[in-house]
């Protein structure tokens, strides 16, 4: 079946199907039942599956996360909804010191099959404590798989892949994408974790991006096409593992790379890509790599200030042009 639906609806459908398919799958978090999640990603599921499998919780982020861990060790496959990624930081210990390390410390006696959902990114005035994109943190933590779907189709296919993954998956949905529609083919094979999406092909410059920034990059690529610059645009969608092959192949060909991320540039995941590419393709680069990311400041509330911290299509265009010239 191919249907048009929003990014939020796609994940709702994915979770629903996985819960029907596997009785060990359940979800827990704040306000899942009455509200159906921040963007309706859980709407109707409590009615369908009951309060035990769509479990409304108190405001206890540490315990929400630990409940997921313990329940994963005891034979279930929890979907842990932490809402705003900013609050996931309240459960950082449970994620880093427990979730990520248990399989390893205990030498593979157990796995920790769970999905940790967090909404990242700016969305019109959400300000310093509700706008962060902390993907770089999670990539740095051994044991974690980190996904950043950016389309409805990927939010369907990747959430399913995440739920079926036997290791803990950090699943980062971007708030600004929730309402964006796209075609979802429910019969397509599941997205393979670690495979990037080649959004468009081109030979002049490679642009690597992920999550909400995909939208800006597509705009930028259109503008660049009009200027005669053909972009090889890669939406990584999986940050760990990331699709090294696709990126290296592309940059080997174009010799030029722009990395565009919404997160703070300093210490952002973009640095890892730049470091890897510059180490590996040093001899093939035809221009210095350009790395875009937010300035190192908290996200301000006021609209023009917030905009001043956003990476725009214009900035991406400029970086690509600089690179080509």
């Amino acid at each position, binding site marked *: 079946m191919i249907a048009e639906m929003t990014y939020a609806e796609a994940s709702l459908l994915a979770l629903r199907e996985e819960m029907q398919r596997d009785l060990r799958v359940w979800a827990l978090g704040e*306000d899942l039942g*009455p509200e159906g999640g921040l963007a309706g990603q859980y709407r109707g599921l409590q009615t369908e599956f009951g309060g035990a499998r769509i479990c409304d919780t108190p*405001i206890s982020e540490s315990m929400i996360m630990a409940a997921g861990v313990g329940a994963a060790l005891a034979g279930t496959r929890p979907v842990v909804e932490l809402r705003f990624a*900013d609050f996931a930081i309240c459960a950082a210990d449970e994620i880093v010191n427990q979730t990520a390390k248990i399989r390893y410390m205990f030498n593979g006696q157990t796995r920790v099959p769970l999905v940790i959902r967090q909404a990242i990114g700016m969305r019109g005035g959400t300000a*310093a404590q509700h706008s962060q994109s902390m993907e770089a943190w999670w990539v740095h933590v051994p044991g974690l798989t980190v996904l950043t779907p950016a389309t409805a189709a990927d939010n369907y296919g990747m959430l399913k892949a995440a739920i079926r993954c036997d290791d803990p998956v950090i699943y980062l949905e971007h708030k600004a994408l929730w309402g964006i529609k796209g075609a979802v083919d429910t019969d397509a094979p599941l997205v393979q974790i670690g495979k990037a999406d080649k959004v468009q092909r081109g030979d002049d410059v490679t642009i690597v991006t992920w999550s909400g920034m995909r939208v800006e990059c597509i705009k930028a690529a259109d503008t660049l096409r009009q200027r005669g610059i053909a972009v090889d645009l890669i939406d990584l969608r999986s940050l760990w593992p990331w699709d090294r092959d696709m990126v290296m192949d592309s940059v080997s060909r174009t010799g030029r790379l722009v990395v565009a991320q919404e997160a703070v540039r300093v210490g952002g995941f973009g640095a890892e890509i730049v470091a890897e590419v510059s180490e590996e393709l040093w001899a093939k680069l035809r221009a210095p790599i350009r790395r875009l990311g937010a300035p*190192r*400041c908290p996200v301000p*509330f006021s609209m*023009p*200030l917030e905009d001043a911290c956003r990476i725009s299509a214009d900035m991406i265009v400029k970086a690509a042009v600089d690179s080509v010239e």
Partner: protein
Amino acid sequence: MTSREKSAVPPSGLPASAIPLGSNERFLSMLGKMYVIREFEEAAGQEWHAGNIRGSVHQYVGQEAIAVGVCSNLRSDDYISSNHRGHGHSIAKGADPIGMMKELFGREGGTCGGKGGSMHIADFSIGMLGANGVVADGVTIAVGAGHAIKVLKQDRIAVPFFGDGAVNRGPLMESLNWAKIYDLPVLYVCEHNGYAATTRTSDVTAGEGFIARARSFGIEGEEIDGNDIRAVDEVARHLAQRVRGNGPAYIFARTYRHHPHNLRDSGAYRTQDEIDRWKLKDPIKLATSWLLEAGVARAEINAVEGDAKALIARALTAARSAPWPQLSAALENVQDLGAPL
């Protein structure tokens, strides 16, 4: 749970009905503050719907008596901290609603220069240490301020305002232990409005709730009708005195928010009937009828209401016409070294 929680009122608590009345003037001025908060919140809601205010707005309508009653008993150098529903606390502590409205509009001249927005209003000039977007984090910070008061041997007190949803966060529970073992001058104010966002807190709160937890740490306090400004005023005065120079206490105030959690929430988890019943106990209505009975003239009440309306109208005009902040502000006040970048 309700009836048992009621019985948990400690011996030191006076029933609200027995609280001696203050002067009419005092209550009239408190009513005025309540009106300012009410008008501020209704205006904020309208402007949000009109697209002039972005982000989240959590209105304090229905709970005004708590902020006003408590803050009327604090010194200006006492500290308060707040949560996501913070406008009322700031106004009650003495923040300028015009600066606050500019803040909600994200404009220059806003209390935080437009960089904070609704959930991040602070005014250090009046001891308001900040609203907070993370549930319960304002509480732990206030307890830290209480710790500094003790280290510095001052006689201030620190007053965190928080909701019944915050009661289940571990850091808040750690704070109860902390405030007690160091005997910090902290007056906890729990605003029990029955809900945490769309969740009925009684569904996710074990045992007798906040009061039982506080008492298990050896912290005593009083339970009050948070919609009755007289009760809040009296108990706050009494407990603020007790806490000053001493260890912690709490106020547990039952109340209700008239509006949804924030302006995006459909409100479907509450019945109209429940809302209507609580609206009958609207703190402003209650105070008005009681003041009229006490001999205050209707005209005087109309006057404070009118003043509030005028003030908020001025705030709106000021906010609408204020310029946007300079773009350079985005990179200012990050830190001294290694910024901007």
